[in-house]
């Protein structure tokens, strides 16, 4: 890791839900070009931490910094505008719009066309073509004019990823991108993430339960347990550490690995 200050940083980040510390004083910095996996048992606070970073939740105390700027009090859209891109764990799309329109909205957000009252959206071929490109990256281009509500779960997950790509963020936040996907769909998404990592000098954060995925993709692993950061380091080292073995991986996982 470099000695300069991290691009994205959480400082003693805490949220308290009526006495329960879902995320408790988590401090962690991230650098471009690295993929960090966040692991931990269910309820460890991984998604809550994500929500605090991307602004869906407001922290009780502590700070979030992006490019040195304190963004702790900014709203979710303001943070998205600054380059925090988020894909959600529970599929969170625009159900009664088409697949293409979902991605087009993400591309349009990036191009800041939202306040254009007059032009016909269908005349912006550039934006539509961009959206189609992202759809073909997740192999959904053939379903561009389906309604999202009728898509199989796996395709909805792919669309979620395509929308994150379309935002062209500085920070990619994937929350269990492959959950619920069939075995043959998973590689498409993993290849895409590996591709972002290889080609773009961005920060990638990944919440993932599949340890083989975590091991093969990560440059670094952060372990959360009961809202606290309990381990942070190189994959091999973290996975081998006793605290992780005990807190997260448990006996069955150990046997599998």
């Amino acid at each position, binding site marked *: 890791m470099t000695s300069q200050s991290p691009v994205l940083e959480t400082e003693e980040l805490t949220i308290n839900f009526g006495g329960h510390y879902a995320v408790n004083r988590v401090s962690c910095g991230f650098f471009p070009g690295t993929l960090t996996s966040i692991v931990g048992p269910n309820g460890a606070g991984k998604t809550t931490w994500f929500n605090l970073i*991307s602004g*869906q939740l407001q922290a009780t105390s502590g700070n979030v910094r992006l490019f040195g700027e304190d963004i702790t009090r900014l*709203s*979710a*859209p*303001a943070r*998205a*505008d600054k380059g925090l891109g*988020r894909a*959600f764990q529970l599929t*969170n*799309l*625009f*159900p*009664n*719009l*088409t697949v*293409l*329109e979902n991605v*087009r*909205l*993400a591309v*349009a*957000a*990036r191009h800041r*066309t*939202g*306040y*254009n*009252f*007059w*032009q*016909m*959206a*269908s*005349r*912006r071929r550039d934006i*539509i073509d961009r959206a189609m490109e992202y759809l073909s990256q997740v192999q959904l281009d053939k379903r561009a*004019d*389906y*309604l999202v*509500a*009728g898509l199989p779960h796996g395709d909805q997950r792919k669309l979620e990823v395509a*929308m994150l790509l379309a*935002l062209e963020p500085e920070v990619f936040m994937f929350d269990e991108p492959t959950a619920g996907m069939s075995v043959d769909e998973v590689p498409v998404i993993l290849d895409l993430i590996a591709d972002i990592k290889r080609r773009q000098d961005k920060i990638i954060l990944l919440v993932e339960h599949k340890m083989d995925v975590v091991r093969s993709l990560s440059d670094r692993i952060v372990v959360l347990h009961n809202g606290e950061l309990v381990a942070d380091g190189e994959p091999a080292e973290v996975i081998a550490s006793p605290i992780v073995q005990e807190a997260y991986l448990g006996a069955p996982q150990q046997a599998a690995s």
Partner: protein
Amino acid sequence: MLNAILSGDYPRSRVLTAVLLVILICLALGPFLFPSTRAFTTLGMICIFIVVVASYDVMLGYTHIVSFAHTMFFGIGAYAVAMVIASMGSSFGAIGLGVLAAVLAATALALLLGLLSLRVKAIFFALVTLAVAFAFMTLVNQLYTVTGGEDGLRVRVPREIGPAFRLIENDLYGFSITTFLGGLFTQPWNLGEVIRESVYSVRVTGRVVMYYVCFFFGLTMFLLMLRMMNSPFGRVLQAIRENEFRAEALGYKTVYYRTATVVLAAVLTALAGVLFALFNRYVNPENTLDFELMVFILLMCVIGGMGTMYGAVVGAALFLLAENYLQDLLAVLGGYVEGVPLVSGLVGPERWLLWFGVLFVLSVYFFPKGIVGQLRLWADERRRRAAGGDEDQSDRLQQGATQPAEQPKG
């Protein structure tokens, strides 16, 4: 050309296209097709209410903002012009000033409503609009020295848009559709006579001029809103309707979009209110601010089909026709059942609201997506059947009523 006018958002149903064309022709040639003054007034009201209902649809159907203050903005427009004319006398300058006052007042109030209460949950916004609308109505009732209170204000319009003015010295000819159809059914053997009787003379007064002002206002504002709803802005509104949380995560500051929507709807409704005052020449709390009117606007929007724009046209036309002519129909029916107990009580002209309620319940039950939504659904089904039960096609869900087609289908 047509694509640009309709912003690529076609009716997408042959039946709907036909209905819209009939409405367009009737409104465009109104004074030359229907000789009665009642028809004339009804048609003018349809032109005005298309704008009122369409702007309500922008909020309700496209963005899912429930507002009960729509009549308040309508009243602001109507009262602004009526009060300026009452104090300054009747001139086009006064009307201009009234328009300006209406737009400013509507914008200010809508901004306030939007920024103060759109941050909170939708239900609170609805309640706040309800409270503000009632406060405004009370205010108008109480300030009778300037508003005329419950008696309202008579609007003395400039001579050029009043009944005494003649745009053209000679009368023009009109062709009465009602007389013609009536004759066609009762004495089809006498076609020549029927046609001759159908021709009537039309005096092109200032009222007719005013009617066409309303018509072109309705047409252009409708097309403007149709364009806006198919612009990148309109697409964001639909995204907010579908999933506001996700729209924010994409970087859309939804509070601003929603406020812009409320302001847009308020200003357009206020302008419609101005035209209402000038066309109706009489403004009172009952015909502009009443809660009953608010419910009617809501019904027109829902019956026509929310989130479709065209629904506003169909809904406004159907509702106003029912409001004005259902009573006649009931009076005729009442004549047949006179003396029959209970039934005669049910079928009286004063029972029109009851029967309208029944029609409303039936239409919501059978057309949950509104008339326009349902017609599009049927058209989609027909197209899919025509495509021949292709596996991939039947797999595909119908494009919903609110779904703008990327590729216009002939």
